[in-house]
């Protein structure tokens, strides 16, 4: 390439800075043979959404890919550890199950564990499924430790993610990116110019009058899609008939003794409430459907449910669940909310940002006239990711027997995509769960939610019968005992965070003052 490809990232929220960090961390910027010349345009006046405080284990791969030190990142973002999600009142009132970041048991005789459990359960001899899951046992007791590297150890059967302050993560990544040659420009976009022949974006004109030209534009401007929609009109596919939540009220509270190593999600009358423990506070919110509850009522419900003093007034976010029809269109790529929105129930927001970034890097254009085939392949891969997450989320709403509120009646009776219906039937019939090449979620995730929301397997893989009853029971008991013994020896989550990456409030204040 003669001169570097000029990439302009519009928007400095978590998506924008994750994108900037990946491009500046992986590709050498600011040198004479750089592939890219990357600029990020953001305005301090525009607030960021930052609901993505709970993450999936893949975020660790992203940080590792960038070469970020974990303890430092956790200190800077006030992060805690996450072993999964606790789901309360999902499916039915009084229900409580975990979606773990880890396996149930271990496969035996070439058969996945859930089949053995179904069989043992039918014999009347199984403990609850979660007793055989390391991640859930550790989470239930609010413990944490790193997984073992020894693949034979039961302690290797889980992974972990983080809860962090998304605003601080963006700031941390900004520092990382700027240190590696990323050029940041403060300013609001006043106008966008297009090439008259191709219809591609030519430049952004800022309120200051500065014009920023580019070969490729990455739209990280959030829901509104300032470039992809307001300029290029790529179109939106609405999924709200399956996922009716369209509002979220978010409020921080003081840190309390309830310092869980998991995200908590409690299903309510018109949606669900989250609780995310950080080092210095807890994030809370009510994600709800405005068709089923008023803002006032939602506000009252949220404030009534808090377990600690609120640190601010709740902030309201509005959204429509769905997906940009083309997430890379012409010379404009969307990453984050401009590309699609799926409610944060399964903490997928930053995963979808991450996968869009890594897919983009694999398809990095090598010429200034961008080959449309690259966009086509990007869209094919990213579409799959969104649809997979969509189906998994719908399952949480669909599989319920709640009779206390109209939302649950609606979602129980809605027509779900065939792709999901097939999965539910396969599980009910024979305990089978999907295992794809591309996209979320992995088999244990499906098992946990299906089983957790009372979709019971009526059969199991015939090969499980190759093990006789007595041997099966012995193996299950041994497994359960090993998990309990190992979890007993694990440190408490609060102690672990305290030792590993905790920033005492006084020190944090001094650091803040020194800046």
């Amino acid at each position, binding site marked *: *390439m003669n001169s570097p490809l000029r990439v302009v990232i519009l928007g400095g929220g978590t998506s924008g800075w994750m994108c900037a960090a990946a491009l500046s961390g992986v590709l050498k910027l600011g040198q004479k043979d750089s592939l890219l010349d990357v600029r990020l345009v953001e305005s301090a006046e525009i607030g960021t959404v930052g609901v993505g405080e709970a993450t999936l284990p893949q975020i660790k791969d992203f940080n590792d890919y960038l070469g970020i030190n974990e303890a430092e990142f956790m200190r800077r973002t006030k992060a805690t550890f996450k072993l999964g999600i606790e789901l309360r009142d999902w499916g039915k009132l009084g229900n409580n199950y975990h979606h773990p970041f880890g396996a149930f048991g271990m496969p035996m005789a070439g058969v996945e564990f859930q089949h053995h459990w*179904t069989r043992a359960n039918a014999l009347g001899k199984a403990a609850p499924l979660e007793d055989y899951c390391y991640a859930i046992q550790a989470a239930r007791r609010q413990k944490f430790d790193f997984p073992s590297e020894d693949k034979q150890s039961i302690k290797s059967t889980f992974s972990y993610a983080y809860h962090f302050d998304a605003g601080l993560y963006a700031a941390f990544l900004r520092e990382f990116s700027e240190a590696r040659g990323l050029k940041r420009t403060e300013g609001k976009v006043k106008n966008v110019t297009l090439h008259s022949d191709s219809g591609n974006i030519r430049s952004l004109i800022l309120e200051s009058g500065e014009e920023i030209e580019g070969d490729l534009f990455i739209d990280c401007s959030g829901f509104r899609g300032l470039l992809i929609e307001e300029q290029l009109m790529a179109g939106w596919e609405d999924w709200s008939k399956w996922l009716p939540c369209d509002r979220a009220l978010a409020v921080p509270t003081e840190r309390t003794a309830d310092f869980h190593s998991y995200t908590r999600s409690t299903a309510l009358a018109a949606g669900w409430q989250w609780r995310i423990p950080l080092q210095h506070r807890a994030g809370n919110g009510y994600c709800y459907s405005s068709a089923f509850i008023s803002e006032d009522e939602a506000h009252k419900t949220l404030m009534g449910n808090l377990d600690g003093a609120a640190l601010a007034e709740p902030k309201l976010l509005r959204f429509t669940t769905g997906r940009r029809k083309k997430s890379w269109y012409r010379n404009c790529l969307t990453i984050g909310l401009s590309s699609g929105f799926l409610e944060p129930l399964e903490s997928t927001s930053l995963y979808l940002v991450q996968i869009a970034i890594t897919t983009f890097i694999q398809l990095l254009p090598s010429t200034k006239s961008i080959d449309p*085939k690259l966009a086509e*392949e990007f869209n094919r891969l990213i579409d799959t990711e969104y649809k997979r997450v969509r189906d998994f989320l719908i399952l949480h709403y669909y599989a319920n027997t709640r009779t206390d509120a109209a939302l649950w009646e609606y979602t129980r009776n809605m027509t779900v995509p065939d792709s999901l219906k*097939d999965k539910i*039937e396969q599980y009910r019939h024979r305990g089978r769960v999907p295992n794809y*090449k591309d996209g979320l979620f992995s088999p244990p995730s499906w098992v946990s939610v299906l089983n957790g929301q009372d979709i019971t397997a009526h059969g*199991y893989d*015939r090969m499980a*019968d190759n093990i006789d009853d007595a041997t099966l029971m012995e193996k299950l008991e041994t497994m359960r005992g090993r998990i309990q013994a190992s979890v007993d020896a694990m440190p408490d989550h609060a102690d672990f965070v305290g030792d590993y990456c905790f920033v005492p409030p006084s020190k944090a204040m001094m650091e803040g003052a020194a800046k």
Partner: protein
Amino acid sequence: MTGLDMRQVRKVVIVGRDVAAWLAANALARALGGTGLKVEVAELPGLLRPQDTLASLPQLENFHRLLGFDEHSLLKATGGSYSLGQSFVNFSSAAPPFFHPYGSHGGSINRVSFMPFWIKARQAGLNVALEEFSLTAAAAKQGRFFTPTAEMSAFGRLDYAYHLKAQSYVQFLKAQALRRGVEVLPLRLFDARRDSETGHITGLISADGRVITGDLFIDATGPESLLLGQALSVGFESWSQWFPGNRVLTVSGERLRSLPAYSQVRALSSGCLHLTPVQDMTGLQHVYNDTHITDQEALEATALIAGLRLQPDAVVSPLMTGRRQQAWVGNCIAVGEAACGFDPIDNVGMHALQTGLAHLIDLFPVTPDSRLEAHEYNAQMQQSFERIRDYQIAHYKLNRIDNEPFWDRLRAMEIPDTLAYKIELFKARGMVPLYEEEVFVADDWLALFTGHGLMPRSYDPVADMTPDADAIGHFQKMLGFIKQHVEKMSSHDAFIERNIAGSLAKTV
């Protein structure tokens, strides 16, 4: 017994012959024999002849391991040999033959995969084919075979497949199955008896009035698909618009003086000639279309092109490419050619059979009502068969044989969208999109596309971050590594002699 339906499938009847029937019997007995499942083979007279050979893909090794077969005993019993890939000859009027190795090409450089560096170098004028960077291809082309060392494995993926004598393989499979308790009942003509309500097959009635009952019936009857296709009238979707051959001439030739560890496909003016070397002979299959040449002309062309002394054992069979619209209907599952007929190119037949069996075990019915299993199985098998089909179609579509009407038409034909998309993305970027249920891995597609002369317009620019001199240094190191290791390898002949002692090679 809370809520489980305990009515299980107790008996499986496999009706059919030869490899499909006996590999199915082994797979079911091995996977489910310990669960009280009874496996019975209603065996039709075999159709294989001494001159029939089989070539597998590398995945068969693992399948055999799951079945508990010992590789050396298998090769000894079947007069078999190893295969490191396939050589494609004369698919271009101008370009030399190319090799599809069962292994990877090149190693990554500075954590970036090899392909973009190779494309970049080609664009700059490097005249070294992709296969030169494959240890597997280099070993094969020099008549070698090897057991990978840790150092070699670190260089990249190194797999191998087998060439087997079909009749001996069936005898081997049958002996193994009988040892596992599989029962065999000889059968000639038969009728299927069906339940008037469910349409399920309840039994097979032989010409002499015997009734063979079962819960599940496997159709391993070959292209005729006697159970699924005929008794249950499941339609056939023909693929003849993509595959030019409708006849196969099979004949055996003398053993090649030194035994190649690969098979060869030669494009002829109106067909393809496949050579599959085994220990004591060379299996030849000539695939052609009878509107272009007669059977006699096919035989003459085979003798002329192969340049081998042929046995007077030539036979001609019809070739029907395409698949049954469903492979599983009611309580009947078709496997192998009864489910899908493939062109012989790429040696995919054994693998399609193996995939059908693996999915059947994975989805073995939990109750007599197997509608959900059938739904899932049919979806998976359709994808799996079509991914194999796409790979094969590419050979015909991408041919560069000038002035031959047979090949000109193939170059101009419409191809499935799934394949067209792969070709387009490869041309744009040198990468291959892989779908779910893909059989061939990225290395295979790269060998195929580059072998037929496709050259990408661009490559992953991340390769530009490595200075050219560095990349050239890595290229030289790789070529040196390959050369040095291949020189130390023994010949395929010697390898077989040493490891499969007392083999057919010695006795003939």
